[in-house]
């Protein structure tokens, strides 16, 4: 297993290098001066020159690339021109929102997608199957931002005075943020002033922090605000997962070993879950890994709709402001996570299917 892991890691290196190179090139080729984008009419030649030197833009492109890589390896992704703060700080602040959103969306997609697929496969060609597949087809055909707007219309406008009302935007009720006690304070690990960046980063996951401090009101409030965005972002993955589960399980249930299991007199539930589903899960897991792209695009498109301050929104603002360092950093982080998620998927493969591990 460790040999398998090592080989995979070595194979990843050129891809990771390529990602760094491409993000660097893209960020440098975005037309327009960051100086004018940042200072607007106040951009005098003197101001711009100072900024150019501060950002190292006066050096040659290869030189800039070397500086960029060495800094990145030390965890320094540069400084945001627009906000005048280190990019890593901005990311540390905003990543938790996006990760939480994507995580809950994925959870939603798996929790509903897999059972839907199982039911459709088991009762294939029945009305239930047809209905499920119609819903799944609609799901993949819907633009995520439209779904987001429609959910807002339904749950925040039409159902305004019912118990089903859900807030249209934001991540917590107004003024709630100040009452939150970070988990490291209530555990006595550190005070708000002395906490390490890692602890602060973890405590920014509202729902996780709520669980860790047994503050279930926080979990409830944060959850309420995340439901609509999570449904919006999770629907396409849900539909894809449902379709994949169905087709893969249909294949598995047609195999000889299923007939053998039936002949042995096993219960249907055992046949489907232990013999069918376990063998049908490989493609489903691949698809779940590949859905990461949808989750990120979904976050970019919906964070602004739901007023969430996450990475997607940050990226978009950075592009409008030509904030090179931020664009670079966000694309880098996203692409790297994609590569690592696929690595995890590959490892899961080996875990689920001994044949792959051995070969």
């Amino acid at each position: 297993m460790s040999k398998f892991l090592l080989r995979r890691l070595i194979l990843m290196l050129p891809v990771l290098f390529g990602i760094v190179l491409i993000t660097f090139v893209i960020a440098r080729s975005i037309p327009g001066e960051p100086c004018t984008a940042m200072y607007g009419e106040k951009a005098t030649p003197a101001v711009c020159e100072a900024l150019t030197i501060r950002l190292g833009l006066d050096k040659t492109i290869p030189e800039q690339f070397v500086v960029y890589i060495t800094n990145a390896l030390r965890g320094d992704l540069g400084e945001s021109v627009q906000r005048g703060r280190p990019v890593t700080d901005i990311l540390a602040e905003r990543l938790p929102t996006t990760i939480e959103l994507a995580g809950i969306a994925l959870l939603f997609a798996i929790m509903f997608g897999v059972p839907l697929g199982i039911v459709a496969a088991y009762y294939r060609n029945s009305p239930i199957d047809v209905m499920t597949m119609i819903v799944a087809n609609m799901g993949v055909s819907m633009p995520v931002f439209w779904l987001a707007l429609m959910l807002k219309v339904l749950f925040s406008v039409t159902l305004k005075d019912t118990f089903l009302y859900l807030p249209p935007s934001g991540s917590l009720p107004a003024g709630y943020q100040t009452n939150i006690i970070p988990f490291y304070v209530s555990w006595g690990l550190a005070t708000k002033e002395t906490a390490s960046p890692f602890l602060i980063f973890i405590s920014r996951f509202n729902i996780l922090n709520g669980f860790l401090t047994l503050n279930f009101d926080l979990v409830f409030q944060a959850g309420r605000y995340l439901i609509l965005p999570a449904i919006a972002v999770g629907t396409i993955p849900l539909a894809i997962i449902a379709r994949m589960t169905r087709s893969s399980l249909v294949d598995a249930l047609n195999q000889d070993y299923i007939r053998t299991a039936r002949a042995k007199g096993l219960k249907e539930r055992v046949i489907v879950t232990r013999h069918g589903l376990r063998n049908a899960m490989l493609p489903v897991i691949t698809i779940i890994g590949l859905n990461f792209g949808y989750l990120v695009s979904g976050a970019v498109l919906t964070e602004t709709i739901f007023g969430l301050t996450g990475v997607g929104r940050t990226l978009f603002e950075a592009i409008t402001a030509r904030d090179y360092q931020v664009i670079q950093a966000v694309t880098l982080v996203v692409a790297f996570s994609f590569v690592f998620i696929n690595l995890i998927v590959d490892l899961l493969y080996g875990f689920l299917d001994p044949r792959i591990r051995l070969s």
Partner: protein
Amino acid sequence: MQEAVPEANKPISLSQEVYIARPRWVMTLKTLVSNRSAMLGLFIIFFLLMVALFADFIAPYPYDKSMRDTPGYVASGGRLPERPPCIHALGCEDISEHYMGLDRNSRDQFSRIVYGTRISLTVGLVSVSIAILFGTLIGLFSGYAGGWFDDITMRFMDVLLAFPSLLLAIAIVTLREGANLENAMLAIGIVSVPVYARLVRSSVLSLKELEYVTAERALGAGHLRIVFWHILPNALTPLIVQGTLGIGTAVIETAGLSFLGVGASEPIPEWGKMLSDARDLFQNAPHLVLFPGIAITITVLGFNLLGDGLRDVFDPRLRGK
């Protein structure tokens, strides 16, 4: 594709193919017609094509004409420009009303949606054509040449695939200086090149080892002739399937770019742009959110259904399931 038939097909269907001595395309067409979802998809696409072609006759107003000065608008007492639609099926008698209401610039939304069909179909076709053209070329040469050329190209494609397509598309539009529909189409085309390149390459890898290619080479055919004349035609099937599905994706992604403000600009009636304009009106004018979204969904659904159907038809292993 053909060489897989003896293994994958059960003896019964093999003998069927022997008995019915009809050309292959007739068989394929027959399977396609009996595939319900493909037919539904084809019907939707045909309908959309008709709407796009005859938009001038279907749309009651030009897509960029403000209704502020028309008698109907004045008669209504100059209500909110984005007033809810009068839906005739629900018993609305006022004929001068607008089927889907007016947008915030007092333009007839129904006409804009109708003209929008043209935009979306064009965008889908153009960007998929760009992707197929470059993807096929890269895949063909990379797969045929093999060696270091293949390694480098495919690693590069892997890198491109590591970015979520929307992010990359946004970046490309920004690079092209100026957000407009042409750049959006180009960006979406470029972003999906790796998908087609890998698809074609994998077909080429298996095709180039076949005897008929070796025979061709023995007869003295040049590389270009072998690649374009003998390998490409046999690699077309997965391309057609992926291309059909790709049009749907392209329509959704263009709408996404326009929604974010890096796609179509005023007064082009692009559906994503229309949604973007209506995003802050969702409380007072939900119909401005509803209809463009339905239009996008139906269009994408059409191409997805046809693509799925085509895949079932072309993949002999799935036949008769």
